[in-house]
């Protein structure tokens, strides 16, 4: 988290120049296609009014056979692509064409420049020839009415929603999610008001019938206003110049305000100059007399120049504000970006001016791609930082819990474990569940950050490619039949770029997921057995390499295939090899896969005491293929994972230990109960055991009656592996306590009734005792379980 924010912070605010320039360039680019149309629009005007003489001459010429032939040839010629799209044979030829084109354009520009002064007059003449002054004023009056109706509707809307909007703005926001949600709701309300305005103004506009010119102009103005307002709303959503709470970009109040202002200025200037240009185009198209076709060019150029100047002013003034009173000297990153973007704007403009429309679009797109990528990356980082800042409380607690859990695991592993007595069913406590949920949440943001970052970059590049294809589309795909080298290289580049980007995206995802998983892994300390993740730690890098190799292979194959190499045989060869290896390694694969699943199930960890079928022992090591279990007497079993069916783990969570004592029938049970309880408290208080005991020693009363004694039971519950020491201590204490309180352990005694009056002599006594002895021995308690260590 910190790593990213360190990168993002110092340079983050200046990236938002790009917004400005993106706007500027978009406006500029719109001039170019429009500029290209100018001749088409102007042409009908030129031929609009042929004189009767011309018509006569034309008829005469049409009758001429030579002219007819020439027309035929010309028609055939126009069927072919024009000189712009004809693939040229050699570089010098191409350059010659280029120079010719530029020269022609220069001539036109010069003409336009000379006529620029008279353009207002031209506009006025065309205007008055179409619309009288009265009609113009009436149109303006109508326009005012429409705008007022729209504004009135909007005001009404504001009366009903204004307070809700205010409440939204005043909300106290804590998380990024809330900010986005509230910001979105706010934008929705504002868009609603723009929409209502549009309904009001355009709706009333539709109520009336219009002169074509007036309709065009009024519509142009209304659309212009709506576009500007929509842009302002979008800018408000992201920049939120007035309310810091809702801002989605890392900008200060002053920066956000000034950037917002500049965005408004640029959009307005762009919309106005574009609107004027469009209106003028409509005008020249409707002109009833000859309009010089360069007039449009001069209007368009003037509009573009105004846009360029405003954009550059905006860039530099914002750079000044963004550098926070620092001088704009060398080394100030703002200076670099301002220069870069100014150059970009000017380059776009100049290319548009010499009518290299395709090149202009490409320069604009590629030039913007670079800063836009950086900007978006910083922005994604910022959003992630913001999202995580709010998660901190949960984050920390989850870390703590995870640590606790880890320690528990280590301890459990450290102690060697052995067989357990059969556990009685009771409510198992599972403290791991909560910790796991929290841990998951923590990972949720950081795991996806690089992926989202890449995804955004990917999207940007795709946008750029689509843009380029759209720009070059006419020339590139029109000659799809004609395979020129340049065309081919272009296509290959696009193919390869996309393949690389997708592979990169997949690779980053896998790598982040694996690296994050590995980052959580703590290598075992000296003297401790490796944790359950140890096998993950060996498997995951392997997996990473496999994915890398696979991706590289796929990319390589894609590249080869886009170069035209037939990859079919390669694939078939690889397939055959794969099948052969697959058959040979069937068992191995089964073991590995089964191992992965046992690992996922968390069936056993290193150091745990397990039973597999009739093999028991402590898990000592795991390899990719097999499991090594050491019997407590030293024997080592190696079990392939594939052979594991069911597995019993004796080292999980808790164990119950039951002890029995035989006491005479005349024992005071209340006293026993008290004594056991006291011992239980003592054990619980013993610092050595108190952490291991889950439920301390307690009496279970008489468990059964035997011939000569009764059996009282006691039990306790501990963590796995701790029960032996505690049992030992419990035995000691019980014995001592019973002794001190006069409770004797029952001894086996056999009453021998002698049915005779005379006293027995020594020999007979011995014989009787011997007989009794054999009677006692025949009922000895069972030997201890053989597996108990």
């Amino acid at each position: 988290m910190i790593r990213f924010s360190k990168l993002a912070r110092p340079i983050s605010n200046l990236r938002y120049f790009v917004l400005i320039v993106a706007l500027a360039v978009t406006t500029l680019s719109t001039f170019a296609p429009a500029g290209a149309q100018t001749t088409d629009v102007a042409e009908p005007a030129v031929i609009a009014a042929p004189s009767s003489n011309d018509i006569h001459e034309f008829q005469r010429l049409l009758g001429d056979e030579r002219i007819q032939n020439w027309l035929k040839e010309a028609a055939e010629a126009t069927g072919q692509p024009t000189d712009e799209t004809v693939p040229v044979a050699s570089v010098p030829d191409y350059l010659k064409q280029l120079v010719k084109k530029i020269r022609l354009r220069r001539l036109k520009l010069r003409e336009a420049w000379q006529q620029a002064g008279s353009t207002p007059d031209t506009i006025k003449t065309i205007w008055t020839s179409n619309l009288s002054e009265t009609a113009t004023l009436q149109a303006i009056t109508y326009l005012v009415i429409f705008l007022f109706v729209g504004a009135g509707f909007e005001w009404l809307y504001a009366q009903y929603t204004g307070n809700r909007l205010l409440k939204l703005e005043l909300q106290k926001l804590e998380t990024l999610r809330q900010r986005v949600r509230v910001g979105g709701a706010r934008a929705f309300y504002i868009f609603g008001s723009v929409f209502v305005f549009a309904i009001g103004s355009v709706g009333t506009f539709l109520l009336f019938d219009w002169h074509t010119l007036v309709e065009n102009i009024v519509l142009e103005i209304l659309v212009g206003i709506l576009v500007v307002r929509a842009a302002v709303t979008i800018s408000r959503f992201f920049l939120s110049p007035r309310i810091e709470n809702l801002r989605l970009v890392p900008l200060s109040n002053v920066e956000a305000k000034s950037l917002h202002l500049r965005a408004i200025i640029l959009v307005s200037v762009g919309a106005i100059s574009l609107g004027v240009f469009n209106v003028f185009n409509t005008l020249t198209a409707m002109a009833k007399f000859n309009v010089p076709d360069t007039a449009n060019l001069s209007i368009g150029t003037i509009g573009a120049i105004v846009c360029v100047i405003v954009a550059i002013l905006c860039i530099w003034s914002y750079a000044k504000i963004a550098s926070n009173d620092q001088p704009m000297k060398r080394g100030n990153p703002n200076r670099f970006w301002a220069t870069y973007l100014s150059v970009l704007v000017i380059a776009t403009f100049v290319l548009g001016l010499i009518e290299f429309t395709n090149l202009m679009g490409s320069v604009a797109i590629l030039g913007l791609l670079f800063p836009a990528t950086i900007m978006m990356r910083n922005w994604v980082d910022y959003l992630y930082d913001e999202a995580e800042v709010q998660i901190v409380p949960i984050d920390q607690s989850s870390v703590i819990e995870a640590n606790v859990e880890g320690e528990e695991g280590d301890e459990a592993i450290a102690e060697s474990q052995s067989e357990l007595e059969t556990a009685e069913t009771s409510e198992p406590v599972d403290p791991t569940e909560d910790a796991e949920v929290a841990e998951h949440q923590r990972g949720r943001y950081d795991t996806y950050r690089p992926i989202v970052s890449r995804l955004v970059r990917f999207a940007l590049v795709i946008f750029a490619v689509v843009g380029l294809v759209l720009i070059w589309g006419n020339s590139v795909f029109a000659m799809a039949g004609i395979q020129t080298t340049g065309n081919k290289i272009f296509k290959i580049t696009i193919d390869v770029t996309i393949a690389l980007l997708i592979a990169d995206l997949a690779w980053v995802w896998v790598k982040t997921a694996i690296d994050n998983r590995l980052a959580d892994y703590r290598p075992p300390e000296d003297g401790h057995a490796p944790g359950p993740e140890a096998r993950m730690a060996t498997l995951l890098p392997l997996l990473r390499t496999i994915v890398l190799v696979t991706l590289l292979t796929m990319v390589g194959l894609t590249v080869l295939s886009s170069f035209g190499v037939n990859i079919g045989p390669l694939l078939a060869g690889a397939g055959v090899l794969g099948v052969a290896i697959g058959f040979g390694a069937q068992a191995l694969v089964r073991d590995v896969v089964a191992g992965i699943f046992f690992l996922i199930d968390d069936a056993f960890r290193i150091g745990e005491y397990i039973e597999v079928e009739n093999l028991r022992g402590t898990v000592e090591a795991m390899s990719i293929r097999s499991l090594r279990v050491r019997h407590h007497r030293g024997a080592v079993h190696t079990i392939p994972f594939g052979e594991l069916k069911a597995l019993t783990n004796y080292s999980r969570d808790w164990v119950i230990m039951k002890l029995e004592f035989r006491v005479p029938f005349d024992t005071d049970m209340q006293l026993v109960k008290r004594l056991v309880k006291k011992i239980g408290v003592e054990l619980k208080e013993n610092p050595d055991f108190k952490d291991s005991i889950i439920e301390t020693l307690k009496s279970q009363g008489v468990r059964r009656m035997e011939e000569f004694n009764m059996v009282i039971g006691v039990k306790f519950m501990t963590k796995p592996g701790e029960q032996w020491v505690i049992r030992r201590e419990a035995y000691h204490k019980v014995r001592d306590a019973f002794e001190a309180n006069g409770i004797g352990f029952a001894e086996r005694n056999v009453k021998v009734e002698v049915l005779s009056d005379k006293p027995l002599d020594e020999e007979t006594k011995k014989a009787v005792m011997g007989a009794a002895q054999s009677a006692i021995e025949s009922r000895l308690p069972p030997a201890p379980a053989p597996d108990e260590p």
Partner: protein
Amino acid sequence: MARKLRIFTGLILFAFIAGHLINMALGVISLQWVENSRPYFMFIWANPVGGNILLISIVLHMVLGMHALYLRNTLKMSAYDLVQFLSAVLIMPLLIPHAWGVVGSMTLLNFQLTFPYMIQFFWIETPLEGLRQVLLVVVIWVHACIGMFTWLRLRSWWPTVGPYIYPLAVAIPVLALLGFAEGGNRAVELMRSGIAPIVPGPADPSIQLDRETFFQNFAFLDTVKWYLLYGYGAIVAGVMFARFLRLRKNRGILKIHFRNSWGNERSLVTKAGPTLLEIAIANDIPHANLCRGRGRCGTCRVRVDTADQTLPPPSELEQATLTRLECPPDMRLACQLKPEQGSIDVEQLIEPDIEDLNQTDIVEVAVVQ
């Protein structure tokens, strides 16, 4: 007093304008309707008493407005105030040609002005005047509505009634403008079909103006119009200059800390001079002000925690509001309090999204605890 007078004159003017526009709105049906219903809408104002009341109201309202402009501490204001201020300044230049033109041509030129003639005049003879007329309607109605609603929203019944009245506030001018446009369309059609334009008849048939007097009067009318316009311009400029002189003095730097229970604390450093409310608005600090800084509602009241200066005592207006709300002495109205240079800590008491005065009591309880 000035407050009451402003509201009173404003109400009179509003009544006139509303009537006039409703009259025009009938043009959506037909111009004949407009003309026929004119006497019903105009009879109050068409006699000397009503006319003079109207005239006095206009002048008084303007003078009071100028006075308010003179007292304005800053031109950075909320959007509503800005619209109110700009529309107020624009009304006179837009109104004078119309009002004086109508009055003058009836008295001096002896024209009987009817709606059909006026429509023809605005749409065909002088379309620029037509445009001015539309702008006038827009500006005057906006100004009137802001004034009215700012006054009305303090009534306890307004929250229930208001939502039903808002649509009217839009419908009246929109219909009037549409009626105006429709009438214009009709007039243009008539002109195209070759019907002779309407010539206004004499307002008083007993008087016959000869040609020379007519043109003399016409010239006089025009001159007076321009004098009025220039005069108004001079007044505005004079008031602005006087205001500039009043505010010329540098008042030093003021540090303010805003505290509140809804967790939006802000500190800021600004030039002293404007009221607390004006400072808050200029710095995008949300602050309740239901009456928009007129000192009437008391929703902008703040508790002054600490101040390193003796604050100017409350004005009569402020004291009245504070007394009515039973505020302790450390409470002040942000819209009236003008702290001098130094520093001051205040607590905002009422949540900025307050919708009507009925809510204040509830909030007050929460705050006092």
